[in-house]
């Protein structure tokens, strides 16, 4: 039952009611929250961190070096003294895998960053200046995309001779195409965005526009592409090692370890197992993480 007091007028404050029931989050906080919910991606992140940690400090704890040969102990299966066994020259495989982590991971990361740099410069120039220059530059990228790039990495390695720095060069010089496309695409779409116009209208300078608006939103796909190009680089290096164009002995990347194991596969399968696991788990983790990042950073999915 209603009584007359209920009809008493109350104040009118519509804007105070604007506080949304959900807390306001920034783009990054929201993305991080979504990423956390993706179990596979988080597992990938944890594994990568663990492997990186092992790569950094692991070798310090090992009593063996990666190159000490003790022929008497060649081809021993895993045991208490040699956790992963030994290879055909008596070298401790566990240590070699740890060092291999250093090499494979650093190749993955360094090559990807070289790609990133070249890609940002090329894509940035093409996107920012646009016009004929931009179109011609991107046409060139389209054309280059049609070439089997791995063949050229191989050729470069043949010419440059195997070795760690040369691998950085070969991978870095060849795989920047995708990053350039992404960067340019991002810049183009951002230039069109309404809010750049809005920012200009209220007088923000170009530099401020670029920094506060363009860059954070462009970062999403760039981060995803970077994360996903690391396993590609690791794979390419393993591939090169497998056909004899990788780092030079006695340095061991996981690819080298895998290819060395093939000869004794029937008798000593563990020599393949551990490098294979190392490569696969690392690549899997990066792929899960990259997929998760892609979903988390997708602005359309923001709720």
């Amino acid at each position, binding site marked *: 039952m*209603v009584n007359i007091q209920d*009809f008493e007028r109350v104040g009118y404050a519509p804007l*105070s009611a604007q506080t949304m*029931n*959900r807390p306001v989050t920034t783009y990054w906080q929201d993305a991080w929250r979504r990423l956390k919910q993706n179990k596979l991606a988080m597992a990938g992140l944890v594994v990568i961190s663990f492997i990186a940690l092992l790569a950094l400090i692991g070798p310090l704890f090992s009593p063996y070096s990666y190159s000490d040969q003790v022929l008497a102990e060649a081809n021993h299966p895993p045991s208490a003294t040699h956790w992963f066994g030994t290879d055909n020259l008596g070298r401790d495989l566990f240590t070699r895998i740890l060092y291999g982590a250093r090499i494979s991971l650093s190749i993955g990361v360094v090559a990807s960053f070289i790609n990133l740099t070249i890609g940002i410069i090329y894509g940035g120039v093409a996107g920012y200046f646009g016009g004929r220059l931009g179109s011609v530059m991107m046409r060139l990228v389209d054309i280059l995309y049609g070439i089997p790039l791995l063949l050229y990495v191989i050729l470069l390695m043949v010419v440059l001779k195997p070795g760690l720095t040369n691998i950085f060069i070969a991978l870095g010089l060849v795989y920047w195409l995708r990053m350039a496309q992404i960067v340019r695409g991002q810049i183009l779409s951002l230039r069109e965005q309404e809010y750049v116009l809005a920012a200009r209208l209220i007088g923000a300078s170009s530099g401020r526009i670029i920094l506060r608006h363009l860059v954070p939103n462009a970062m999403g796909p760039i981060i995803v592409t970077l994360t996903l190009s690391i396993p590609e680089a690791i794979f390419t290096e393993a591939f090169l090692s497998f056909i004899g164009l990788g780092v030079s002995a006695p340095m061991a990347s996981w690819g080298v370890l895998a290819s060395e194991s093939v000869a004794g596969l029937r008798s000593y399968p563990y020599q393949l197992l551990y490098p294979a696991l190392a490569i696969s788990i690392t690549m899997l983790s990066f792929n899960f993480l990259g997929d998760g990042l892609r979903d988390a950073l997708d602005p359309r999915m923001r*709720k």
Partner: protein
Amino acid sequence: MEPVLSVENLTVLFHTYAGTVQAVKDVSFHLDKGEILGIVGESGCGKSVTANAIMGLIPSPPGDIAAGRILFGGSDITKMDEASLRRIRGNAISMIFQDPMTSLNPVLTIGTQLTECFLTHHSMAKSAAAERAVQMLKLVGIPVPEIRMKQYPHQLSGGMRQRVMIAMALALDPQILIADEPTTALDVTVQAQIIELMQKLNRELDTSIILISHDLGVIAGLCSRVVVMYAGQIIETASVSELFSNPRHPYTHGLLDSIPRLDEARAHLESIEGQPPDLLSPPVGCAFQPRCRYAMRLCEQAPPLFAPAADHLSRCWLEHEACPHSLPVRGHKAGEPA
């Protein structure tokens, strides 16, 4: 005379990872034969969800018809199985959508997309279906229809695409056509053509139409009765003339006030301050209260529907018989949009 469609106390929920969204709450209205009913409201008020529910197109997780009935042809649509629903869709009840650019399949010809309407619901020869398709294209005013049949959507203009959509919707002479924002994506001149077309088809084929729009001008031009929705609920129902001359809800008042006028000198644009409520945690009382100039203490309780006049319902405590306040009267002639 029995209404051709009767929606009773419809409630639709969506179970999302963030919680349960109450998209439509206790919505009731009816549609008479040959009538054009308008549903007005801003984005997110639940009008499209209601339309989808009538077609049985609410995806079943996460959507959930929690309560209510939709009566059509003696059966309840909410309880029908998929096979029965498919027989109705495109056949007895059709729908056209907002954006004709994206609503047609770009890799199939107009002819294919039109003839499949016939072929799905009746067994007939392809040539017979093609003939009827050409007739439909003529009916909606598309010139040289035989050529258009072989063309692809991207070769037609926006207005023509929307006409094709209407042709597909009316191909099987449905009893009800639901038009969800049919003119919103079109130029103003093309809008007028489409509205004219819909009027003509309503007259000639006696098709009942539910027109959903946020554009009051379009509603006024076409509909005989209007339902106003806000935050998933119906807050006012009346005939068009009654609604525009004597709106009995503060939200409707606000909507009408916000239409810019050419014949009055006004210093600024009126708008309704504030935002609609978050449907994840809907408010307990009247959903419009935070934005309402006339809010009272009583508004903390959810208002029922009152009947301030014959065939005129309003969900507002101001319409309570004991209420000492009332909405100001608008000084406009009956039937003229604000």
